[in-house]
């Protein structure tokens, strides 16, 4: 049998792909918020984290894994909608540092509250899929049932979001209110409702990402589990361009694979440093991201 599939390079690519779709999902949720409300949501990891803890509370009553997933996503929708209505609504039209500061405050409040209620010890969520790598001729391929589940879920979410934007009336309204709020309002689009829906959608995507992270046998759920993933997700979104969903996903996967190679061939400390260098270089070369067309900034 060809040992190609079990070689070091292919393993790194497969592991990187599994990590990359997670970064891509978080980057996608950042892009969704950015496109609808022009806010970089620093609590984009913390809000889904709270939603997943809510799902965990239900899961503690011996229900199935899929109950956990559904409850978490519903909780994520609710948290996203309430946050937009209660907190974010007051920030439109303010100087651009105001929303940043408020969302950073929201991030540490959420992490603090979650740690106060559920403590900082990791909570495992046994998923129905085995995290043990498959074997080929006695050697492991860097793929397991769980990582296939991760990749497939991420793909389904990405395709679902794309389909929503492209083929539904709701998606058209979302795009219209992001591009030209005044015109859309005149044409009968309920822009304010669309903004709320943008946050609901994005927190939902973020929650799916967090549930996948939490179901991973090796990480589990902690209040700060999303901090690192937020950093990688932001880097992916910034490299791809905060306006470009496709860019977010592609650069998420690319960064996942590159960092896996760095981690394997250099060491684990180099991962975060490389990510930072990628971010700095890409921002210097294309400040608006690799996947966005350059546009003049409105004055």
């Amino acid at each position: 049998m060809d040992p190609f599939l079990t070689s070091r390079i292919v393993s790194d690519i497969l592991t990187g792909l599994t990590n990359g779709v997670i970064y891509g999902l978080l980057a996608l949720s950042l892009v969704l918020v950015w496109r609808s409300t022009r806010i970089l949501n620093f609590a984009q990891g913390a809000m889904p984290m709270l939603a997943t803890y809510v799902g965990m509370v239900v899961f503690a009553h011996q229900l199935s894994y899929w109950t956990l997933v559904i409850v978490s996503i519903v909780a994520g929708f609710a948290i996203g909608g309430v946050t937009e209505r209660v907190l974010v609504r007051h920030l439109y039209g303010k100087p651009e540092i105001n929303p940043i500061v408020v969302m950073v405050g929201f991030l540490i409040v959420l992490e603090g509250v979650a740690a106060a209620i559920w403590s900082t010890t990791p909570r495992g969520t046994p998923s129905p899929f085995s995290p043990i790598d498959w074997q080929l001729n006695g050697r492991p391929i860097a793929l397991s049932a769980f990582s296939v589940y991760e990749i497939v879920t991420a793909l389904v979410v990405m395709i679902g979001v794309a389909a929503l934007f492209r083929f539904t009336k709701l998606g058209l309204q979302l795009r219209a209110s992001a591009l030209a709020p005044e015109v859309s309002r005149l044409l009968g689009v309920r822009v304010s409702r669309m903004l709320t829906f943008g946050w609901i959608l994005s927190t939902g995507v973020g929650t799916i990402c967090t549930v996948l992270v939490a179901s991973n046998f090796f990480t589990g759920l902690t209040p700060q589990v999303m901090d690192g993933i937020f950093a990688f997700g932001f880097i992916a979104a910034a490299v791809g361009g905060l306006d470009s969903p496709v860019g977010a996903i592609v650069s998420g996967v690319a960064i996942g694979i590159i960092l896996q190679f760095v981690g394997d061939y250099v060491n684990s400390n180099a991962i975060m440093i490389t990510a930072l260098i990628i971010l700095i270089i890409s921002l210097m070369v294309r400040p608006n991201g690799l996947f966005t067309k350059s546009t003049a900034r409105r004055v």
Partner: protein
Amino acid sequence: MNWTRLKRREVLSTILIAVAVAITSLTTSSVRDGVAIGVMVAVAIIGIATLTANGLRATHPVLARAALTVVVLDVSLFATYFFSAITNFNLAIGAAMSIVLLGLSFLTGASGQISLGNGAFMGVGALIMGMWANHHTSTPIFITLLIAVAGGAFVGLLLGLPATRLRGPYLAGMTLAFAVAFTAIVNSFSSWTGADAGLQLPTAVTPPHWLSDFFSSQTTLLTVNSMWLADITILVTGVAFFFMANLFASRTGRTMRLIRDNDVAAELVGISLPRARVIAFMVSSAYAALGGALWTLINNSVSPSTYSLALSITILSLVVIGGIGTISGALIGGVIYAYSTNVISWFTAHTGINPQGNLANQLPGIIFGGLLIVTMLFAPMGIVGALRRLWSKRRARTAG
């Protein structure tokens, strides 16, 4: 008008002299202490006299700022003599923190950029201080502090280069990534930085001779007596604040404010945006490094885990709560930081929260985060802004 000014000045100096005479006669055990107190009082009186001189603020603003700095420094240094060791320690920690806050306040308030990485820049300064003090034990501490500042400015330059083309959210995210990466960077150079364990200052770090002679302390070791630390930190803080007050009012400061308010207009009058942005970023990281270096001095050691993302966020909270872009706001933030731990533990003790429990551990984060949101939504200019608004309202009422 002249008369009221003169009268106020006379009353102030009389009170000060009376207090000084009383304290001197009550507390001095040696002639040297008496002389020291006498010098301090004289400096305070001269400073206040200069400060209250007619029209000085309008004609010689730099001199007025210098006089104010001297008076505040003088009174604070005087006070450290009477404070307990723990108060002096808190004072030193808070004073060093206020330097960091001032740096971020300048970056955000004057140039409109935002940084979530100033905790990591503090760490850069703290580690450089620790490394240099370990390798070159004979360097005077003020030189070591300057080296730490230079190191911080250099790292600020490296990270600030992309900042030249970035707008708010991107820069915030990039500095956040730096704060997250800081641990990894420290661990990569573990032979220098000591990785997680950090560094211990060699006990040979001593104050300059003239200083130890002047204080006639029992020990010449800098790290043993917290009064030394508080005094040195306060002195450095004073210099840093004086410099920043002038920078705020200078051409550079005005340039920054124009960029913050309207960058297109700034470019049209010939200001180089990239240059101004990099300078602001470098100043802010140099100030953060100075604060971190002072922390190393005060704690006698560096522990890299202190300089986490959480610290960066605390710094941002303190700047916002104190008042973005104000000098007094940075001082208020420093005081809040120095006493927040005490206040929060007092709060937990009086509300019956288990002090070892999860809630008590998370309380600082929840409180700072909550204050951050509330301040930004209801009083975006912080405590100083709210006070100023009250003050101008009162003045408007009395005038009309």
